[in-house]
């Protein structure tokens, strides 16, 4: 509260309006605003510099490429003429991630629902803990486990799939050999993305408002119907986000894939045949021995992975936004 004291000798004319005072600011607000704005800007700068770096180096590589960057089934940037293409890598990355998603998302949603809505409390927290623990295992350990355990044990499954589903061609195994193939990689990736998808979904399911669940219960819904009527619709966008987090990890996973897969640039649509490759695996395998131009070529493939991940995230956001008014966020 401030008062303006008018000296007694001032003229009787109406007093001039008091000078506009700045709204009081507090140093804490200023510092915090600066910090949060700074972090936001920093993130944008980092993203932009990564994109610029990748684009710059990729441009050098692509302009020196004598093959078609998108359709060539070969990776020989050191050859004469240099020829390399991402077709096999794109195929391998997408296919192994899709296999991982198809397996992991339903299982993860199931585990999350079990922990949040079915399991007795005594069982729920230890189980949640164990699932989270899966995320703490380093990916090289998954790779070793995959190579030493999964590959031999999936041999049987591979022949079974070959015998009974071989007519679908994708499960047709055309050669004899260990299961160091994209199918095994997909299964391994499924296990690796399980914890992140599970724990995000579980958190979302636990946030379903009690009154939404009671609405279904009071109508005479069974436990499954309560989940179908109120839990799953409420958790839908959360499960999509969780899956995208998992997909991001599957697309970029390097060590585990590199350990399990026996890579080759011979394109084969048969999932059970050894060979193929993924962007990250290919970069890890070749970066050390590549020359300057070879590294640029690998960076060009990295740029494609970067764009692919951006597209996947954008698509997920579109799916979530499209039915926003039904999302429960406005309830």
């Amino acid at each position, binding site marked *: 509260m401030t008062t303006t004291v008018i000296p007694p000798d001032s003229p009787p004319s109406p007093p001039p309006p008091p000078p506009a005072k700045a709204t009081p600011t507090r140093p804490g607000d200023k510092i915090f605003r600066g910090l949060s704005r700074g972090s936001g800007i920093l993130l944008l700068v980092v993203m932009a510099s990564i994109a610029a770096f990748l684009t710059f180096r990729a441009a050098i590589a692509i302009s020196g490429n004598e093959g078609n960057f998108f359709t060539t089934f070969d990776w020989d940037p050191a050859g004469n003429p240099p020829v390399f293409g991402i077709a096999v890598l794109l195929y391998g990355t997408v296919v192994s991630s899709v296999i991982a998603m198809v397996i992991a998302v339903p299982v993860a949603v199931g585990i999350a629902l079990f922990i949040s809505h079915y399991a007795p409390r005594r069982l729920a927290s230890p189980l949640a803990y164990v699932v989270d623990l899966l995320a703490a295992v380093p990916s090289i350990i998954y790779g070793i486990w995959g190579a030493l355990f999964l590959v031999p044990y999936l041999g049987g499954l591979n022949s079974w799939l070959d015998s009974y589903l071989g007519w679908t061609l994708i499960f047709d195994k055309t050669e004899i050999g260990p299961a160091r193939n994209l199918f095994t990689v997909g299964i391994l990736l499924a296990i690796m993305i399980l914890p992140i998808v599970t724990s995000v979904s579980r958190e979302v399911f636990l946030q379903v408002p009690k009154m*939404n669940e009671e609405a279904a219960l009071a109508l*005479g819904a069974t436990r499954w119907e309560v989940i179908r009527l109120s839990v799953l619709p409420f958790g839908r966008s959360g499960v999509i986000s969780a899956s995208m987090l998992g997909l991001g990890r599957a697309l970029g996973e390097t060590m585990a894939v590199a350990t399990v897969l026996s890579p080759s640039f011979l394109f084969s649509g048969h999932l059970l045949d050894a060979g193929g490759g993924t962007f990250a695996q290919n970069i890890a395998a070749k970066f050390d021995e590549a020359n300057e131009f070879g590294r640029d070529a690998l960076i060009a493939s990295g740029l494609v992975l970067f764009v692919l991940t951006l597209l996947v995230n954008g698509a997920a956001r579109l799916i979530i936004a499209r039915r926003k008014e039904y999302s429960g966020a406005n309830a």
Partner: protein
Amino acid sequence: MAKRIDVSGLSAFYGTHKAIDDISMTVEPRSVTAFIGPSGCGKSTFLRTLNRMHEVTPGGRVEGKVLLDDENLYDSHVDPVSVRRTVGMVFQRPNPFPTMSIYDNVAAGLRLNGSYKKNELSDVVEKSLRGANLWNEVKDRLNKPGSGLSGGQQQRLCIARAIAVEPQVLLMDEPCSALDPISTLAIEDLIGELKERFTIVIVTHNMQQAARVSDRTAFFNLAAVGQPGKLIEIDETERIFANPSVQATEDYISGRFG
């Protein structure tokens, strides 16, 4: 369509805590019975024992009998899911399914039961929305989400959803406490119409509301915090408000409580 409720010796527990103690009462078919009493006296808990919603709460447990006509809801062979299909419930805060359209909200109960023909469904939806005095306000936007309606409309939508499955009894847990006076009036008028078809039990903190809508009123009280709630008396609403037989009731109603 309406059935008589006959409660005898009913106690409800949360874990080891006894929330209501030894309640017996009869609720006549096609009437409105109001439950009044101070907060924590167990009237909502008691209401939730009438459709076996109490036992959904972790630790929730019930002793005693609730007869719907002649069938004990707590008999060991009775399925709580089918009880809740016979005894509908409307909650304190409007809770339409946020991800569903208005139409789907009303149809939800029928779809659960699975016993409907496709062309019947839209008739039932219209009839229920008309029954809840909501049809004229929403008939042009049945495919819009139910969560876009106003609070009062949402609550009538919840009533439409509850009556769409033609329950025997309709339980209402403070249905107007989150609503403005005009919406409250609309719901009260609706209760007056619905009692022609259903047995209605309503919990309310609003004494005037109890006096306006109910035929009979039950007063619940508790001796002290932490003690179980008890039914003090149940009688014709006029008698409860004009000349109750227990002093505590008169004290509560006239505001001389505590």
